[in-house]
């Protein structure tokens, strides 16, 4: 029983990580039609930003509120980089989707390489707040606290995104834009502002995932973002490409399947079964689990 609890909570923690990355991806894809390969780089930037702040930024550190400050710094850097990328590189290629995708491919290579050039290719130990290193007893299982941190953050983010989409004007613009961008502009709305916002918000979530992923894994390396990105892509596709709730469901599904299979079969089988899951979902429901926004 305790194993199942531990596996489930760990799987949900992983799902939370996937959701944080995938939610931004699916918003960007839904609204802009861009499959953002640079998203993994945003994650890496956020992780290294947090790591750097914990060591160098006055007031920031690896415990309590000073760690929160470090995370805030990392997320801010990730957000800024994402917004800058959108404004400088994606926006000029407005409506030229394939070129936008190619640009993000180039960026994903270049940004990860830059991080590697600055901080080296080796993994670095990530600051972990003491609370996250302890465990909590849940139904007889000793669950590491970082799982709860991840799940809690993802739930907060999910609720925040749903509130944003459902009850703000910009959310209305985003939902309408996912359906029909042209008609949104034909109502006199500059849809490009929503693009920048969505990119920045996506970057913020990815950076947050980078920071929390660092806590979860205990270390960070430049290539971490890219490998997480692939699973995030799978989550987005299973979730129906542009649906936030669909993405959340898919993330939970993928996280749990991966954990269970890795434990009960063999290490690595979890990853395989996720790919199998993707194939099954696509073959039975080619448009993914859900095709609606929010």
């Amino acid at each position: 029983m305790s194993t199942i609890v531990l596996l489930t909570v760990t799987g949900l923690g992983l799902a939370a990580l996937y959701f944080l990355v995938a939610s931004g991806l699916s918003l960007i894809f839904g609204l802009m039609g861009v499959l953002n390969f640079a998203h993994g780089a945003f994650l890496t930037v956020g992780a290294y930003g947090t790591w750097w702040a914990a060591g160098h930024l006055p007031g920031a550190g690896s415990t309590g509120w000073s760690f929160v400050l470090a995370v805030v710094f990392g997320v801010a850097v990730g957000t800024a980089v994402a917004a800058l990328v959108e404004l400088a590189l994606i926006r000029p290629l407005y409506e030229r989707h394939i070129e936008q995708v190619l640009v993000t491919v180039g960026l994903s290579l270049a940004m990860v390489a830059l991080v590697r050039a600055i901080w080296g290719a080796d993994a670095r130990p990530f600051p972990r707040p003491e609370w996250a290193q302890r465990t909590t007893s849940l139904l007889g299982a000793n669950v590491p606290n970082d799982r709860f941190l991840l799940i809690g953050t993802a739930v907060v983010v999910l609720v925040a995104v749903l509130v944003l989409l459902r009850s703000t004007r910009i959310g209305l613009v985003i939902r309408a834009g996912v359906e029909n961008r042209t008609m949104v502009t034909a109502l006199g709305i500059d849809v490009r502002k929503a693009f920048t916002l969505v990119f920045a918000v996506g970057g913020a979530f990815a950076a947050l995932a980078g920071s929390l992923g660092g806590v979860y894994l205990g270390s960070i390396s430049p290539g971490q973002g890219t490998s997480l990105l692939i699973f995030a892509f799978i989550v987005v596709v299973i979730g129906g490409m542009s649906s936030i709730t669909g993405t959340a469901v898919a993330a939970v599904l993928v996280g749990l399947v991966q954990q269970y299979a890795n434990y009960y079969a063999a290490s690595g089988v979890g990853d395989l079964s996720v790919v199998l899951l993707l194939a099954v979902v696509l073959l039975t429901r080619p448009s993914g689990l859900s095709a609606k926004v929010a």
Partner: protein
Amino acid sequence: MRSVPIGRFAPLVILVVLAVLPYSTLQVPVLFDGLLNSPGTLQLLALCLLFGGLALSYDLLFGFTGLLSFGHALYFAGGTYVANLALTELGWGLGAALLLTTAVGTVLPLLVGSVALRVSGIAFSMVTLATAQVGSILVLQDPGGYTGGEEGLALDRGQVPDAFVGVFNTVNLYWLALVYLTVVYVVVSWVTRSRAGRVWQAIRENERRVEVLGLRPYTFKLLVFVLAGLLAALGGVVHLLVLGGSTPRTTTSEFTLSLLVMVVLGGAGSRWGAVLGGVLYTYLDSRLTDLASSPAVQDLPEWLRVPLSEPLFLLGSLFVVVVFFVPGGIAGLVDRLRSRRRRGEDDGPAPGRVVEQLKDRVGAGMSGPRDGI
């Protein structure tokens, strides 16, 4: 039409020049470190030619048929690892290993393609990406110690003909790579001008229209997917021999992305463009690494030295610049310079168009045309 005599014989002339190149003892100061026929230079050139061929096999999918696969690395890596295992673990001869690789190189893309091609657009790209990731995970997990994990797998040279072993025989590896490139070039030229080649181009232009003509796009896409996968797998064997081992780097999604970079850099949908892109990328990747460790760069201030020390940073940035300012890549640039408006039937598609064409495949299904096509 006036450029046909040159155009038709240019590949042949280049082939001859490349074939006799190892006999030259030229010293090319900036471009290469040693003599042109020194083992180091020849190995670099062999890799350039090999990746030129590999990029062309990818262009067959992406540029000519419009299939944006993110999993081409799987077949290349499959080629090196299968051949390596056959030689090293099973102790087979090179011929038998080649046969096995051919079989795997046909069956693997057939299996993946038959599933992946049931969906189209981004979903197809994602399925290929995911399956390639399986390959990567498999190699890194090192099941049963067969793949060597992160260390890679060294080749047992005892099973390889002596002609391909040893520093002095680097020239043979060079010729082998040249043969590979030539084979890929001839095959791609041939099939793109074949009856099926016409259909591939048409699928890139408008898949549903092809269907209404009574052809099943699925079959044609599967055909080109298998063909490109097989060519990549054979390239894997050459890579194995040139490097003397298999490296897990060839399994990564980054590797496929670099193939995409090569093709777009050179010009998607153009045969020589893709080859040139592969050659150029490989050359730059290698030379920029050398440059990074050169004293000239080491003495630079840190803010310059750090980015310059990562070739992939420079290549990635160069790629972004090309996408922005040189649509259609090098081939597109040359095409515009020649400003030929009408293209003969034997030419490939205009390189710039390919990227344009694929727009719809990546788009988010906006309010599109309403009458079915």
